[in-house]
């Protein structure tokens, strides 16, 4: 008596659909994050460090281990302003 595989086919379909959508979402997230896994639970410190990474490398998730910063790095941190009302 073999395994009744016709009965298990719907389970295979469900798992396949879930797996396909999970894999697609994971690939989309990796493409959005430069080939890396997405960051989660990002707090203000992490946002500030990611902003510094963007000033250093040009990408939000770019990383470099140079010792010296590129020229003009110390001047590239902007003042954040509000438009005034008169």
């Amino acid at each position: 008596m073999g395994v009744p595989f016709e009965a298990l086919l719907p389970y295979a379909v469900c798992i396949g659909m879930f797996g396909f959508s999970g894999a697609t979402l994971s690939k989309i997230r990796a493409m959005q994050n430069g080939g890396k896994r997405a960051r989660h639970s990002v707090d203000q410190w992490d946002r500030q460090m990611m902003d510094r990474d963007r000033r250093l490398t040009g990408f939000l998730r770019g990383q470099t281990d140079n010792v010296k910063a590129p020229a003009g790095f110390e001047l590239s941190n902007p003042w954040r302003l509000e438009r005034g009302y008169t």
Partner: protein
Amino acid sequence: MSARQPRFNQHLLIDTTPLPDSIPKVQEVGSSSAPLLSASYFIGARCKAYNDDYMQCKTEANGKGEMDCLREGRKVTRCAGSVLEDVNKSCLEEFRKHWECLDNNNQQLWQCRKWERPLNSCVFEKLNLEKKIPGAPENETPVHLRKRQIFAHSIMTQ
């Protein structure tokens, strides 16, 4: 007009005026977040005195620390730059593997212990810098030396 909290999210101003020449120039550290996190305990091991000086100066300055503590800040920057330069010269491969792992794992140190152990031993041999967690209780093994990391995702990377 009643006063409301300012919302600084509308406009950016980049001021390109450089610092005056009376302030000595120091090269800023050029590493981004993952290599800095990876090397942070080694920077702490070598630069503890300068870092403590800077933090004490900022605490005592009562708001004027940005201008008054520039001298201590220059020392901190130079020391951190020297640690990064030494790690780059001696342990580059292990260092790169560790911070690439950290970058993939939301900058969580406990996911990447597998690559941290060779880095720690290499840095200890070549540069004599040991990673110590300040404030850890003395009678337990520190978290980075434990065999099993209870929050890690997979057992392969522990």
